[in-house]
């Protein structure tokens, strides 16, 4: 069991949060959708796991490399 930080690959804003804390996510599932450069960019968990934390709210600005969520693999 390892805690993994899920980081934003883009600077933009949080458009929609799709997953709940405690939810079990499969590899490739999206935690939230970010908006950047007029595109909807999903924040994806590569290896899946349980969502432990969501560190942002809808509408806030985020920067590249910022930890937006934590997953336990």
């Amino acid at each position, binding site marked *: 069991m390892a805690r993994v930080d899920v980081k934003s*690959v883009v*600077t933009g804003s949080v458009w929609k949060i799709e997953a709940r804390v405690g939810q079990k996510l499969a590899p490739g599932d999206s935690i939230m959708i970010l908006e950047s450069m007029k*595109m909807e*960019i999903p924040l994806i968990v590569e290896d899946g796991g349980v969502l432990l934390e969501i560190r942002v709210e809808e509408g806030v600005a985020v920067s590249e490399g910022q930890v937006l969520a934590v997953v336990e693999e």
Partner: protein
Amino acid sequence: MSAVPDKSVEETGWAPELEELRLRREKSLGLGGKDAIDLHHSRGRLTIRERIEGLVDQGSFQEVGRLTGSGKYESGKLVSVTPAPYVMGLCNIGGRPVAVGGEDFTIRGGTSWSGDRKKGGQGGFVEDLAHQYRIPLVNLIDGAGGSVTSITRRGHSVFPGVHGFEQSVRLMGEVPVVCAVMGTAAGGPAGRAILSHFSVMVKGTSQVFAAGPPVVERSLGQKIDKEDLGGAAVAGELAGTIDQVVDTEAECFGLVRRYLSYMPQNVWELPPLARINDPVDRCEDGLATIVPRNRRRPYDMRRIVRWVADRDSVLELQPSFGKAVITSLARMNGRVVGIIANNPMVYGGAIDVKGARKQTHFIELCDCFHIPLVFLVDVPGFMVGRDAEAAATLREGMRSVYVALQATVPMYTVVVRKCYGMAGMGATDKNGLDLKIAWPSAEWGSLPIEGGVAAAFRKEIAAAANPKAREAEIEASLRADASPMRTAEAFGVEEIIDPRETRPYLCRFIDAAQSRLATSVGQKPKYGVRP
């Protein structure tokens, strides 16, 4: 004493010398001794001899310079030898000859050694071997470079460039050069790592920097450990100083071997053909539906790359740096190609400063080794905004356009979705056939309609009763006129294809370009000034 040896000496023959040779070779295999090797192993690192063994075709290493080092003599008789801290020679990788060498960290931390001729590092026999025989060079770097103690040893300080980079630089236009940073590299060895077509480092055990923590603390008062200064997170992911990061040394050797499998031996040859049982006319159905109709939705461009290229042939380079651009070596009908694909998951595929730098390097690499380029285009343009301007995205972006316009290798443009502006132009073969094929999802122009409408119709939008609605109306009308089919009608793009036909269509043209490629091998001249 007679000059002629007596009978008993004659009977002994050369046995004493052969025994001495055996002893010297044995000492050289012993590297820095058991304690130094154990310490090196305890840090999770292999010795230089283990590294070479792990990298090369089994049993293919022919060492050169096994006797180098410093001998200790008593009454003129050899009692021990400290080997030179560099091991090198000729080996085979994938059945082809390669020059290989690396520092031996177990002897004085792999610092330079003063023999009559250098063995490796910048300059040295191993680079001469690659240059003279036109074979690839692999450097396994694990050394700290020069030491101030050499002033005491020599009695003077050495002018920079006595062991210069001139041969290292020459090799960049002649043969594939791969550098693997296997330990902590500072100074000369760190510089040597950068003068390569491809560089790798190992997470946790490799660090690379111009100068290490003691120099940083003395110069800037900054206390920082070597991992934070030049570990994989900085040198690999943040800065792109090193191209690729791997988890273990074994993985590193596999990656170097794989990289070389796409490369010709030198620029006077073409890359090796490797046909596998993957039909040229394989048409993946997924290609027809992967691009969402909703223009705001991204998709997985890497799947497109995998579906179009020969099965299991894709090697993505620099995957953790400049993520807006995906650069991969791959094969199509067995022939090596370079694929540059925009990644809509990162800034909608907009070219940022890192992506541009990555693209520039990859175009130069493919042009140098006669590897045709395929662009899978979904680019809204260069990255915009204050941060992007401050980072000189425009300059770095134009640099990638410049190298694309200077490259002479055949290029193929496949417009998957967006192809806008200067970044879009930089993905075409303007000096060549300029073959541009597009999917029905393609759209292009000098700038995207949504941004352009607000600027070009500002007065009309402001004067409307409902400005938002008027803007949307104008956008919709322009978008209808911007159908890719209409451009194809005017032969402004050469073909609109069913996305499933991408692989067969590209393979036909890549196969047809082989005569062109075979008759244009050799070094690529460089002129002009890069912006």
